[in-house]
Every structure is written in structure tokens, then in C-alpha cells.
């Protein structure tokens, strides 16, 4: 029994990580209908940005996080403004191709600058500390921090979307960008702001990933897959759906891993397939948000 509780809590906490991976993707899809194939590579880019910063600045990874968030937000803004805005239109293939191109470019630039070595971030004792919950049950402090961050990030985004003028602008532009322009909304600028926001969340995902495990320049597509699965399970465009999608993916993997050590990743993919077959729109599609 305690065994299963352990598995469940581990799965949920792992799900927090996946939810963080997926939130940026969910945002860019929700607001711009843009499927960003380079999303995973942006996570890895953020991880390497943090790795490059901690030593010269002599700060810990958590202290570097705000700097990486700012850098990534600026990068995301320019990426959207200078490149991705030009791909938007009636043809969904163009943004796919351009972001696929960016995926390859980012991987190769990282390979050139950082070599193929796997690198990680050291956050000190927090990485191994754990909270005993009585009996044989304990949860790691770091996974707990990751999951708490995921919930707070999504809570904050939800507040932004439904309680602020900027969020209202995001939703209106997402609903109907032509009419939004008739309201004086510069949709291209809104898209750039949305990408900046998504990239700031990507920075959190990247730094947390590099603390958890080591990352290499070509790890992006793997992260994209997790993110994509979490978004698809949760339902396109819904942030709480994305959080639950991440959790479901995490629990499925933990359960699979417990049944057989080789079944971790596969059970995650099976859970994804099962949801997509039974509910092609995901569990919590956007129309149910309100």
C-alpha cells in the first residue's frame, strides 16, 4: 500500500516537471495556434544558458533563474517578431517548417559552443533532501519544489489570462485575430508578448531540468515529445488541462516503472495514445474552460 502511495506521489511530482515542459507549448498553441517544433530545443537552450551563467557569475542555479527567464523572454519576443510572425497565415505547414529549422539550428549551435558532453546544474543539498511522511513514505524536496512551481506558474498564468487587461487581449486575439485588430489590438505584438511569456516559462523548465538530470545539445526533441503528449492529453489550449496532462503522464510512467523497469517511458506513451483514441480533443478542451 505504502509502496503504491510512493509510486503515485513520485508520478505526480514527475508530472510537475512535464507540466512545466508543456506550459510554454500550450501557451503558444493556445494564443497563436502555433505548433512550435523547436519548443524542446528552447528548453535545452535555457538549460545551457543557465549552465553558462552560473560559473562566471558564481551564483546558484536558482539565483540564475530570473536572469535566464529574462534572456529567454527577450529571445522569444525577437523570435516571434522577426521570424514566426511572418509564417502565420492560412497555411499551417509554414510555422511547422520554420520551427523545425530553428530546432536544428539551436541543436547545432549548442553542439558547436558546448560540445556534445552532457552537462548539468548543481543546486546543492536540496537535490537529495527528502521529507519523511511517516512509515516508509517520503517525498523528495526537489520534486516537490518542481511540482509546486508548476502549479504556481499555471495558477499565475490563469490569473493573468482571466483577471488582467493583457490576458483579455490574449484571449480576444486567440479567438479572432481579425476582429481583435478592429479593436485596436496589434496582433503581431500580442503574439510576440505571448512568445516572450512562453519562453520565460521554458526558462524555468530548462533550469529545473538541468538540476534534475544532465542535458545534452540534442535532447530537445525528447522534451518536445513529453510536452506535446501532456498538452494533447490535457486538451489543446487549456492550462489546467496541461497541468493534469503532465500529471497523468508522470503517474503512468511511475506505475509502468514499478511494474517493470523497462516500461516507464512506454506506459507514458500508452497513456497518451489511450487518451487520444478515446478523447481526441483531450480531457479538458478549451471550450470547457469557462
Amino acid at each position, binding site marked *: 500500500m505504502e509502496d503504491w502511495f510512493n509510486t503515485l506521489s513520485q508520478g505526480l511530482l514527475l508530472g510537475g516537471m512535464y507540466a512545466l515542459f508543456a506550459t510554454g507549448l500550450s501557451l503558444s498553441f493556445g494564443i497563436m495556434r502555433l505548433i512550435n517544433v523547436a519548443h524542446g530545443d528552447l528548453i535545452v537552450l535555457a538549460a545551457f544558458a543557465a549552465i553558462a551563467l552560473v560559473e562566471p557569475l558564481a551564483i546558484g542555479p536558482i539565483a540564475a533563474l530570473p536572469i535566464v527567464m529574462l534572456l529567454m523572454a527577450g529571445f522569444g519576443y525577437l523570435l516571434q517578431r522577426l521570424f514566426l510572425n511572418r509564417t502565420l497565415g492560412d497555411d499551417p505547414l509554414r510555422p511547422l517548417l520554420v520551427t523545425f529549422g530553428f530546432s536544428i539550428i539551436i541543436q547545432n549551435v549548442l553542439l558547436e559552443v558546448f560540445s556534445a558532453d552532457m552537462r548539468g546544474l548543481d543546486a546543492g543539498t536540496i537535490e537529495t533532501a527528502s521529507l519523511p511522511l511517516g512509515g516508509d513514505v517520503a517525498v523528495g524536496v526537489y520534486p516537490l519544489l518542481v511540482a509546486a512551481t508548476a502549479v504556481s506558474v499555471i495558477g499565475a498564468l490563469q490569473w493573468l489570462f482571466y483577471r488582467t487587461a493583457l490576458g*483579455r487581449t490574449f484571449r480576444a486575439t486567440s*479567438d479572432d485575430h481579425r*476582429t481583435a485588430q*478592429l479593436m*485596436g489590438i*496589434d496582433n503581431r505584438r500580442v503574439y510576440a508578448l505571448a512568445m516572450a511569456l512562453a519562453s520565460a516559462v521554458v526558462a524555468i523548465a530548462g533550469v529545473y531540468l538541468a538540476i534534475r538530470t544532465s542535458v545534452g545539445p540534442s535532447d530537445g526533441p525528447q522534451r518536445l515529445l513529453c510536452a506535446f503528449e501532456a498538452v494533447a492529453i490535457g486538451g489543446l489550449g487549456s492550462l489546467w488541462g496541461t497541468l493534469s496532462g503532465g500529471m497523468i503522464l508522470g503517474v503512468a510512467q511511475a506505475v509502468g516503472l514499478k511494474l517493470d523497469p523497462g516500461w516507464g517511458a512506454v506506459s507514458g506513451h500508452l497513456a497518451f495514445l489511450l487518451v487520444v483514441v478515446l478523447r481526441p480533443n483531450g480531457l479538458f478542451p478549451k471550450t470547457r474552460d469557462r
Partner: protein
Amino acid sequence: MNPLEVHDLHAYYGDFRALHGIDFRVAAGETVAVIGANGAGKSTLLRTITGLLPAPAGSVVFQGRPIGGLPPHAIVRLGIAMVPEGRCLFPSLSVEENLLIGAQFGCRGPWNLARIYRLFPALEEKRAMPATLLSGGQQQMTAIGRALMSNPRLLLCDEVSLGLAPLVVREIYAAMPLIKAEGAAVVVIEQDTGQAMRIADRLYCLQEGRVALEGAPRTFTPERVSLAYFGV
């Protein structure tokens, strides 16, 4: 100076020419109706004024300033608001949020939430509802309110009576004098010629992308209007 001057405007959808040199003006505080059969170019005219379709700079002049070719969001911020055909409310926004989004990039002026709710009292009790769950008439009121919230100098209304019951249409048009009293010039596109002739100071009838008739409605005989409308 007239708020809006349109000179020799041509508009195209690809190779198809929808407007053949339209001259169109709106004087301060004036209500202008545009009538014409389907495909006469009424909506195209509004789409060109608001920048949704490109136009040469000098062919559309708003308050002395050439606005042809500006992006729609820049044109709207200068004081032109549009009630689009089919209303186009934002489905994931509540009624009140739809109104507020109109104000976000608008000008200062007499219109605010309280005044809109006074103009259309039916909206106030539904303020928190998703806008697309309202009845057609109330959706149209929301769309007009949303446009007014930007305090436009020029209000463009595309087919506000389309698909609405006559009683509801009358209720919506009853608000027009109040809107006019606040000083905005109004352009309405109407399928309903009778309605258009009742409210307009001046009337344009378009036919196949050209102005077939222009002037004060009371000076026209029904025969002249139907000749301009149908071209037979």
C-alpha cells in the same frame, strides 16, 4: 473638414475588382446609410476604410490625415470603430469583457461601461455571461457597445439588422439618435432600404462597385431608389 473623405477608391479581391472608383464622404455628426444589393461593394467599402483591405494612402482620408494602407489596429486607434457583419463577438470573453476590450485602445470620450448599460439595459444583467450565449439582438447590442467603448469619431455599422426580428431591429435603431447626440458620425450598411431611408441624413446606393445614387433620402422617389438598387 469632413471626418471621412474617400476619393476614387478601387479595391480588389485578388484579380476581382470589387470597387470601381468610389467617392464617399461623411460630414461631422452625420448619419450616412449605404444600401445596395449583395455584392454591390458595401462591405468592401467598410473593409477598405478600416484597413482590412489595402488601399492607396491618399484614397482614404480621416480627419485630414491619409490612412489608406495603415494596418487596422492603427486606424482604429485614430477614432474609427467598426461593428462587423455577423457581430464577431469574442466567444471566450464575457459580455463585459467584450465591452472592455473595445475601450482598451480607444480614445477618451463620453462612453463607458455605465453609459453602455444605460443605452442597452438588457446587457447589464448578462454582463458576466459568455457573449455568444446571448440572443442575437443582445449580441448585436454588445457589438455596438464594444465599438462605442472606444469613443469613436466615426462609427461604422455593417448589417446590424441582419437576421434579427423587426422588433429587435427597432430597439437597436432607437439607440442611434443617442449615439449621434454624443457627436460621432455614423455609417450604416443596410439591406433594409426602408430602415436606411428613415435614419439617414444622406444615402449612398452602390451598384456593382460604383455609386449609383447619392443624396438626402427624402429627395428620392422609390422608383429612383429601386433603379439605383437593381440597375433595371
